């Protein structure tokens, strides 16, 4: 019943260790912050409920999955040999890349912290009291990252800021990839004049330099979180659209698609089940790079005062606030930026790892 132990016994060490460690972490957080956890169910704040329910769901999920999977494995006969599907090969190559794997852990950890923010943050990021006594305190045990000009604990603000920055990055990337893939799929599959017209529109959007397009859209529309996600997503979709369209145009002529059409599959099924999976790998790599780009763009906009505005913490606007205090309180600018750098580096390493793992040419390189 204890998550992970079952897998360890069966010899599936990796899965077992991961499950066990994760469960221990969840239990640890529960124990450490029991008071807040219990209190969360009495408030109406959505984020507290999300954090608390997430912990509960993690626990239930870990136990449930563990039981189910162990049973499933025990039932099956032992496999004579492992399958060598491309996905398996890619996963194995990816796991050999230590930096990439480490990045995955870092990213997952940060997202976990972001979700559990209300439970984990040592202080309230918004409370301002006794400003004169608490402003610009250097990092100490009480305030691990120091305090800002209003006496707010920077670590807590950074944790809440992580939520904003990380979720905007992820959501914006999803928006961009979804719109881009759909648009490109339609254009590529349809071909002909439809494709032509659609690509002209893409050309117009691509002509605007990304950051300038964002600036213009931010200047025209009010910048709250939802609008920001949309703006970031709307500036990035053309790249994916172009790529998918190109892939579809060439894949369309291949035999397996012809035969799919021949047996009467409707277009949407061909697109969803055959064309898109074939074009997927570069899109995955691009998605990883794209998240980094989105997080960076949001940070840049917030830094300039055009994205998320204070007092809502975003790593970008925290660095901006720190700029004024560079002389007296270097930590205000340093820590949020360092976290940003860590996230961006992690996503870059992840994307590099994905690219190397999924690279079809690498298969041949072993024999050269």
């Amino acid at each position, binding site marked *: 019943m204890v998550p992970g132990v079952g897998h360890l016994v069966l010899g599936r060490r990796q899965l077992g260790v991961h499950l066990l460690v994760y469960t221990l972490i969840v239990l640890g957080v529960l124990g450490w912050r029991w008071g807040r956890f219990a209190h969360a169910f009495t408030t109406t704040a959505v984020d507290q409920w999300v954090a608390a329910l997430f912990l509960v769901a993690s626990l239930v999920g870990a136990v449930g999955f563990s039981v189910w999977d162990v049973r499933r494995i025990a039932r099956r006969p032992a496999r004579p040999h492992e399958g060598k599907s491309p996905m398996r090969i890619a996963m194995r190559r990816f796991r050999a890349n230590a930096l990439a794997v480490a990045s995955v852990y870092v990213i997952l950890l940060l997202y976990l912290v972001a979700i559990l923010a209300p439970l984990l943050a040592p202080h309230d990021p918004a409370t301002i009291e006794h400003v004169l006594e608490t402003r610009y305190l250097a990092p100490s045990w009480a305030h691990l990252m120091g305090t800002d000009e209003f006496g707010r604990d920077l670590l807590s603000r950074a944790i809440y800021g992580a939520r904003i920055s990380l979720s905007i990055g992820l959501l914006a990337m999803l928006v961009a990839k979804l719109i881009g893939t759909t648009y490109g799929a339609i254009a590529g599959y349809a071909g002909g004049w439809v494709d032509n017209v659609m690509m002209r529109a893409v050309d117009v959007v691509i*002509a605007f330099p990304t950051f300038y397009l964002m*600036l*213009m859209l931010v200047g025209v529309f009010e910048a709250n979180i939802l609008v920001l996600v949309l703006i970031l997503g709307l500036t990035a979709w053309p790249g994916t659209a172009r790529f998918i369209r190109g892939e579809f145009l060439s894949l369309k002529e291949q035999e397996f698609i012809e035969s799919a059409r021949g047996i009467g599959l409707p277009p949407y099924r061909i697109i969803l089940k055959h064309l898109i999976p074939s074009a997927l790998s570069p899109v995955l790599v691009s998605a990883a790079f794209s998240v980094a780009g989105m997080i960076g763009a949001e*940070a840049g906009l917030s830094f300039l005062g055009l994205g998320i505005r204070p007092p809502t913490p975003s790593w970008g606007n925290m660095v901006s606030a720190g700029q004024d205090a*560079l002389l007296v309180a270097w930590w205000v600018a340093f820590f949020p930026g360092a976290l940003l750098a860590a996230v961006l580096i992690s996503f870059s390493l992840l994307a590099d790892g994905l690219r190397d793992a999924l690279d079809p040419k690498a298969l041949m390189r072993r024999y050269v």
Partner: protein
Amino acid sequence: MARYILKRLLQSIPLLLGIVTVTFFMIRLAPGDPMGMYLEPQRQRQVDPEVIELIRKRYGLDQPIHVQYVRWIANVVRGDFGESFRHRRPVNRLLAEAIPYTLQLTVLVLLFDALFGIALGIISAVKQYSALDKTVTLSSLIIYAIPGFWLALMLVLVFSVQVNWFPTSQTRSMDYDFLSSGGKVLDRLWHLVLPVFVMGVASAAGTARYMRNRLLEVLNEEYVVAARARGFPERTVIVKHAVRNALIPIVTIYGLSLPFLLGGATIIESIFAWPGMGRLTVEAVGGRDYPIIMATTMMAATLTVLGNLLADVALTVVDPRVSLEGKPRAP
């Protein structure tokens, strides 16, 4: 060649038209009255309604939308982007003042990038897996991924605040006017160091990575092996044969960086209070100064289109295998 360029320019016109149209309709989409283009929304309430009507008539806002559209295009073609709200001066004048400052930064950054980025990339590829290569690869990845504004602030912290080697902002010192002319030049250069260094390092990191990968690919090609077999000294093989071929796509990249020349320095300019295009745009966006926003965006987009053209033409010049029409030429 000239005919091709002309043809491409003509082909770009619909695209440019599209850009202008998009920017035109952007402003109509803004919450509020299109009057916001000529008179800030806040001030509209303070002004007498009759005056507002006059302004409307003056700028043709009471006309149907297609008439306004034609007027807009006519103005753009003439270079008249209207007047800035906050500065109360013609936008093109403001642009003309800001552009040289930005160019000072971006041209130097491109030079820095070309010099260090390419050189480091070459060395890195030639001595693959050496300590130098590993250092360059890892550090260029890190520098490339770090948010530019943070890197800038950290460098300012270290080099300006702690050590006071370089000034923290502005283009010139307070006592600029009292310096000798040689002193003035030096002062300008001194102020340029940090901004250029920050942007240049990040940019060079990217170029070095790219150059390294390219050169590694090229070094596996057959003609390199052939050149070695013919007995050329390694230096010649690398420089004359491999590097030249590896540089080809890099030329395209530099062509595509034409819009960077004017728009790439937005954040750095804001940090260093540099009076260039970037800072102008950022302030305009913050202050909802629509004329400037429209003008800079259109300029940036137009430069991108031109940059694409430049990159394509440059590629033809540099790579004899590529013909303008896309058909392979005889070797």
